């Protein structure tokens, strides 16, 4: 890849009913990074992620992925895990695998089936007959089974019990393509801190800090979690 950044966001704004949700967002993310998009509930993390995934339309500004505006080409290289269960619950896991195989050229069907087997998830089971936690695991497996350039994971630990969180993080770490980048949005910072290369703090719709995780820890002589707590203390 040339000097082109993986993700470039320029002067991005998003309003609902004249209420500004995101204000002048400028953000650049290079290849090969795990980036924590950190902020309190309602800070604008999900709005930003939805804008990158074409689920929201910007009020103004521009989003480029590999130099392309959001569209068919960017969707081929972005693998997105929403914060909710979004798959058609009438479908069996095997049918959902078929959907991913049909639409995403970079989807590795064998890998998905192996990961599901490791998790003791039956691919012939309907999603509606699975617990919410199981559905979330299926979604994570599907998303991580793509050889994408950019993985965007919105609250991947949100509905997961503490015992499973390490498994989720390990799945992310061991399955993403190393030339790719991962954006993880969460407010459970202590759980993901160990895997982050970069952090982006977002508050009230504005990016208030973007830094290398290690540099920030050394500079502040404390963990990212502590820095976050200090910055956003109520």
């Amino acid at each position, binding site marked *: 890849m040339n000097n082109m950044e993986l993700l470039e966001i320029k002067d991005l704004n998003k309003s*609902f009913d004249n209420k500004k949700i995101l204000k002048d967002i400028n953000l650049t993310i290079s290849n090969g990074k795990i980036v924590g998009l950190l902020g309190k509930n309602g800070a604008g993390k999900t709005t930003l992620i939805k804008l990158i*995934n074409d689920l929201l339309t910007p009020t103004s500004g521009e989003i480029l992925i590999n130099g392309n505006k959001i569209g068919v080409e960017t*969707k081929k290289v972005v693998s997105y895990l929403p914060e909710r269960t979004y798959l*058609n619950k009438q479908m069996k896991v095997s049918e959902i695998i078929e959907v991913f195989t*049909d*639409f995403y050229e970079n989807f590795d069907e064998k890998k998905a089936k192996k990961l599901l087997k490791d998790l003791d998830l039956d691919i012939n089971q309907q999603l509606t007959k699975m617990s919410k936690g199981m559905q979330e695991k299926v979604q994570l497996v599907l998303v991580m089974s793509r050889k994408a350039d950019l993985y965007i994971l919105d609250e991947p630990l949100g509905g997961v019990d503490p015992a499973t969180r390490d498994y989720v993080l390990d799945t992310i770490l061991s399955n993403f393509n190393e030339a790719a980048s991962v954006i993880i949005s969460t407010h459970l910072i202590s759980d993901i801190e160990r895997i982050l290369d970069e952090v982006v703090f977002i508050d009230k719709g504005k990016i208030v800090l973007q830094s290398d995780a290690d540099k920030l820890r050394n500079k502040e002589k404390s963990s990212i979690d502590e820095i976050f707590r200090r910055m956003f203390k109520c």
Partner: protein
Amino acid sequence: MLNKLLKYDLKYMIKNMSIFYILAIFFAIVTRLLSLPEHSVMIKILTNISSGCVIAMIANIIINVMMRSWVRFRDSLYKDESYLTHTLPVTKNELYNSKFIQTLVFYFVSFIIILISLFIAYYSKDNWTIITNYIRTITIGLNMTTSFFITMAIILIFLEVFNAIQCGFLGIILGYKMNNGKAGYSVLFGFITYLIAQSIILLLVFIYGLFDPTVMELFKTATINIDVKAFKSLAIVSSLLYIAIIFIMSAVCKKELSKGVNIE
């Protein structure tokens, strides 16, 4: 990618509609089997119940194709499932075209199933004679062939219903652009779109009437003695206008969709 989208849209409709198709044909067969020349009072009662079920299933098919098309459109493009739909590497045009073709296919299939059910349940020489005589009475009065009358009637009904479904699609697209009360606005915009589409067709027929006095007569008189020529012209012009409106509305839907969505 359109063929892949269509595959899943058709699968969804098959899953949801096949039960009504099967039941309609099942009750049609039962009605036929029970309609034997010699039968008791109890069999007669069962025949009437079964016949009622055939009619209920046919009504169900008509309503369900319309409702399922709208629900599928809304769920796939604006509800939880839209998180997958809008992140697939496909264009908004392909998304819309898939829903458009799916609706077209299922209306046609439903129409065929309804005809088959009616044929199985009620076909007899006597019934056929009654229907053909009735249609002949109309067509002789209108001075047109039976095949022309039936073809035009089917085309007009088909186009009218399809137009209504598409108005619903545009209503959903516009309704879900609002920040609040999306479902309510969808119904409202769908209804307004339908009224506008019908008004445009009526206006264009009126404009056509300026050049065809027989059609203009329909706007001037209150009697139902329709001139034969006027009926033929009206049927053909209306069909063409419906087709034009359907394509224009389809283009408007795609344009609005391509402006982007705001998923909750």
